[in-house]
Every structure is written in C-alpha cells, then in structure tokens.
C-alpha cells in the first residue's frame, strides 16, 4: 500500500501547487501594480516585477480620498453586519432545523426567496425606506439592508441539523429554558459554521459598493469600495491607485481568514453529551 500512497501524495502536492499559481496570479499582479506608475500598469504584456517601482500610489490613495476614514467606516459597518447576521441567522436556523411548527416550510422559502431578486431591483424601495427613516448618510443606514441574510440562515440550518437532537431533549428534561439551550447547547456546537459565516459575511460585505454609494452622501458614511471606485473615471481609470487601495483593503480580510480558519481544523467531537 505504501507505494500507491506515495504516488497519491506526490500527485496531490503537485496539483495543489499548480492550483496555487492560478489562485495567486491576480493577487500578485495586484500587489505589483500597486508599486508601478500607471503607464507600466497598462503595459501589454504585463510586467510582474515593477520596472519603475514607486510608493507614490500608496501616498496618493490617502491623499486623493480620506481613505483612513473610509477604512474606519468599513470596519464599523462590518462589525454591525457580522454581529447582526450571526445572531439572527443562528436563531432562525435553530428554529428551522430543530422545531416543528405551522408555516415552517413557507417561512423558510419566503426567506430563501430574498436571495432571488437582484439587489438592483430592491435598491429604489430600500432607498425610500432609508430616506423616510432618516438613516441615509449614517453607518447604520449603510448596514441596513444586510442585517439579516438568508444565506446565513440556510448555512446555519444545515449545520444545526447535524447536532444530535438528544442533546437538546436531555437539556429540556433537565429543565433548561429555551434561550439557555440555544446559548449553551446549540451555539458552542456550531463554531465552525459560525466562523465560516463570519468570514463570508465579512468578505462579501467589505466589498459591497452599490448600496453604500446610494446610501451615503458624505465621508461620514462612505466605505472603502467607494474610495476605490472613485479612481475609475470618465476618461480612464487610475488603476495604479486603485490597486494600492485594494492591497491596503485586503489585509484585514486575509488576517481574519487566517485567524478563523483554524476553527475549521479544531473540530469538536460529537460524541458524548455536552453539559
């Protein structure tokens, strides 16, 4: 068996290595473009190591737009949205996974259907609501449409389904209240799913551009993607600045991912009862 194992191992490493190149190519380009002048960025064929390296782009990004403020806004919005999504998704998912009640299938589908209408169509009525609630140009207004996410509910449901029902029933027999069961039995057992959800929500919300643009009117509530997009102009794009900004913007995403992905590894064994 050893020989076949070895060949398999080599094959795996080799394929993974090729995959690495393909996965990383745009990131490498992005990083290298952030150190080039615009003329070189647009070169055909592209250069991978800058011929005329410069840190000017990074300076310009912070000079052209209040990038630090946008960064702070993005962070706050991300915290609001991630917090809201984790809470509402796990609560709702618990219900859909482990409870029986009239209307369950219908509610689940209604919620899922929220993913099925493109955002551009919901944009105008959402804007009207925001205006009438007076939350335009606020960070809450920017977070508003993302406070619940059907994707999160669906994801958590799939994971909570795999939690053995006995755990819950035992806790009920022991006299625990429903909220306590949720807090002590369910949540600890879906750490991987919560981490995954946190990462996805973060990644996707961090790059959200259209709604923050519509909902904001000043730097008080503008976020990073707006700053990056402002480098794309009528007669051409200042891609070099855009890439510098993108490099600065991707750092928290990678950090958070590297932090949380350990959760996927340290699995929690499902045998035995949890107290």
């Amino acid at each position: 068996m050893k020989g076949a194992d070895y060949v398999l191992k080599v094959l795996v490493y080799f394929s993974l290595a090729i995959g690495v190149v393909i996965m990383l190519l745009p990131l490498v380009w992005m990083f290298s473009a952030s150190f080039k002048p615009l003329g070189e960025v647009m070169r055909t064929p592209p250069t991978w190591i800058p011929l005329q390296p410069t840190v000017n782009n990074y300076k310009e990004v912070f000079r052209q737009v209040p990038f630090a403020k946008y960064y702070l806004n993005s962070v706050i919005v991300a915290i609001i949205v991630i917090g809201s999504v984790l809470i509402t998704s796990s609560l709702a998912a618990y219900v859909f996974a482990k409870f029986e009640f009239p209307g369950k299938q219908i509610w689940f589908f209604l919620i899922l259907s929220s993913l099925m209408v493109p955002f551009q169509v919901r944009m105008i009525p959402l804007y009207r609501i925001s205006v009438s609630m007076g939350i335009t140009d606020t960070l809450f207004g920017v977070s508003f449409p993302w406070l619940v996410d059907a994707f999160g509910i669906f994801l958590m449901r799939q994971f909570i389904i795999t939690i053995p029902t006995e755990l819950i029933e035992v806790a009920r027999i022991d006299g625990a209240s429903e909220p306590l069961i949720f807090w002590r039995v369910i949540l600890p057992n879906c750490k991987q799913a919560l981490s995954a959800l946190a990462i996805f929500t973060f990644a996707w919300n961090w790059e959200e551009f259209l709604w923050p643009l519509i909902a904001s009117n000043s730097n008080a509530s503008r976020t990073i993607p707006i700053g990056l997009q402002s480098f794309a102009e009528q007669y051409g794009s200042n891609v070099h600045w855009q890439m510098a900004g993108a490099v600065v913007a991707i750092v928290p995403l990678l950090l958070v991912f590297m932090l949380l992905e350990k959760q996927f590894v340290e699995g929690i064994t499902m045998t035995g009862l949890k107290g």
Partner: protein
Amino acid sequence: MRKGSLVLTWVILMSLCLVGAASPQVVIRHWQHHHESRTPVLESVAKEFEKRNPGVTIEFEPIPYDAYFDKLLTALASKTGPDVFQVPMGFGIEMSRSGLLAPVPESVFTTKEIEASFLPWTVSQFKYNGKYYGLPTDVQTLVMFVNDTLLKEAGLDPNKPPRTWSELIEQSRIVTKRDKSGKIIQGGLDTRYKWAVINLFLHQSINGPVVDVAKKRVTYGEREGLEAWNLIAQLMTGPEAVDSPTFLTGQMKFEQERAAFYINHPVTRGRLELNHPDIKWSVHHVPAPDGHDLSKPTTVGHHWAYVANAKTQNQKLAWQWIQFLASEEVQRKWVLESRDLPSLIRLVNDPELTPDLEAKIAMDSLQFARPFEGVGRNDVDEIRNEIWDNIVIGGMSVEKAVSAGAMAETNLIQRKLR
C-alpha cells in the same frame, strides 16, 4: 457573561451610528461624477461662490463615474434628487420635456443672452419650448492622435497624416502588420473607442440630421449613412482590415504603440503626456469624407450639461450657481486645469487657452463640430454598437445590420417621444 457584554456593546455601537446634523443655511446640493482634476476645481469654485453669496452653502458630492447614473436614478426615482447635477447631452431632449428639470429663469439668464454667449451646438440639445434647461460643461470634440514613430517606420510622413477617408484607409493599411497566420500584430487604427469611430463617420457623411427628432426617426439607414457604415466595414473586415476585435482585446493599443491612429477626445492628451511620455504622438484634425472641404473637417462635439431639479426649493439660486459654473472665469479653470474645451464663443481662440499647437487644434475643432445626435445614451450606444458587432463579428451584410439597427433606434425614439 463576556458574550453578553459583547452583544450589549454591539447594540450600543449600532444605535450610536444614527448620526445626523442640521444646517441652517440655504443649501444647494450639487452632484457630479468624480474626476481627479475637476473635483478640486469644483471645490474651489464652490468656495468662491459661497464667498460671493453669504448664507449659501454648496454641498458638493462627487460620485464615482461608473455608478453615477445608478445613484442619480435612484434618487430621482425616489423623488429626493439633488438640486443641481449633470447629465450627458443625450438626455437633453428627453429630460427637457419631462418635467424633471427647472428651466433657466429669465431673471438669471435670458434666452437671447444664452444664444449670444454659447456656441450653438453646446446648448441646442437642451432647448425646449423656447426655454433652456441646461448649460454646458465637459465640452469635448473628436480629434485624431497619430503615432509619429510608427508612421516613419512604415515609410509614411508623420507631417502628412490622412486628411480624407481614402487616405485613412490607405495609410492604415500600410501600417498594419500581420504574422504568418494572418493575425494582426500591429494595427492601423485603434478602434476600441467605438463610439468615436461610429459617430464621427456618421456625423460626417450625413448632411442633414442624423436623428430627425421632428419625424421621430434616424436617417443613418439611408444612402449617406450607409457610406459611413461601409467605411467601417472596409476598415474592420476582410483580409485588409486595419484592426480586429481579437487583436489586443481589451488592451490599450495606441498607448502600447501597437496602432498608429486613434480617434478620441482632446482630453486624452493629458493622459498620454502623464502616463506614456515616451511615445512620440501628435494631434491632428480628423480625416474628412472624400470631396468635403478639407479646411473645415467636420467633427463630433459632445458635452454634458448642468441642470436644475424641478423639485428644488431654490430655483433661482441653483441657476445662479450653474451660470457661475459656465461663466468665463470658471471656464478658464476648466480648460486650463482639466483640459476641457470652452463653450463660450468669446473664449474660442483665446491665446491663454491655446498654449501649444495641440491645444490650438483641439480649440479649432470646436468650430468644426456638430453636436452628437442621439435621443438617449447607453441605449443608443448599444444599438449602434450592435450594428458594428453584427458587421465585424457576426459577418452580417452592412445593409442588413444597419436596417435592423436603424429600425430599433427609430422604435426607441418613438417610444420615448410619444
């Protein structure tokens, strides 16, 4: 209870974010698309206006260009738009008669004064029922950029660039190089800015209107228009094509010195100087159709306009602001700092605004310009682009492609101007 206090903090954070501020002054909200040189100009012009009009605040919001219409439309559709904003000339006809805009009040600027001050083609698309609904900004024409080095290499004289359509075809073909399999590896004409190529030829070849607004139809399906489309077919199809959609797809051919000729707006000079200083390029008037008067080569003029929202509370003030933006002192700033062209008649040929030969050519082209005709913007562009694609990629005959497109655009106009 650490998790609990985390949740509490998060709730407090959320509620603290409901910030708002009130302002006691008269506020004019001004939206325009962000541009690295125009935005600072507008900021300084706004400060100047506020100084001259105490009690007035200009709330300027620059919006990324790609999403400008998304944001503008959402605001207009929810009846909360800004007081002053800009629209491209293609919207002129529709918006002026839509009731969405407030016309210039006579007390600010009379119709006669407007017609005496501005180049006619820069205001004509915003006139309706004897009133004007927009004043020009972002004035551009089309000129031709030439790569002198490539011309010399091909044995041509860069001081004698093509001045007629025939010369354009001929010289482009000489510069075009192919590899063994017949693929283009160096182009004659960089046609990636299709809007420029299509509309230049159309507006040059057709003597009357390209879009007949009164009769609600387009005329480019007829004999004169077909000449323009046939030129495109000659340039883009067959074994002697001077460019191809598969040649450096999505890349900047002229800037990479892979194409000798490029039709674009004069403002491109700035980008070339800044980002590609090594290229030896020059600017010339666009080539005219054979047999036309070569001392006045027709070109296409395009502009945007500042307009006022009909729902604004301060119509007079909004128009005073717009008038200021289109005034001589501010137009000088636009021209000198953003490489726009002026729209005031008395600024054409102002020596301060034409420091070099290229600027002079750009300025002269103003006088040979006729306004771009099209009732709409993206929808019109897509129809005309589709004619192009049908001819170049789809292999359709020119007549068939053009008649389909002309019919589509005519239907569009009839739907809009009902």
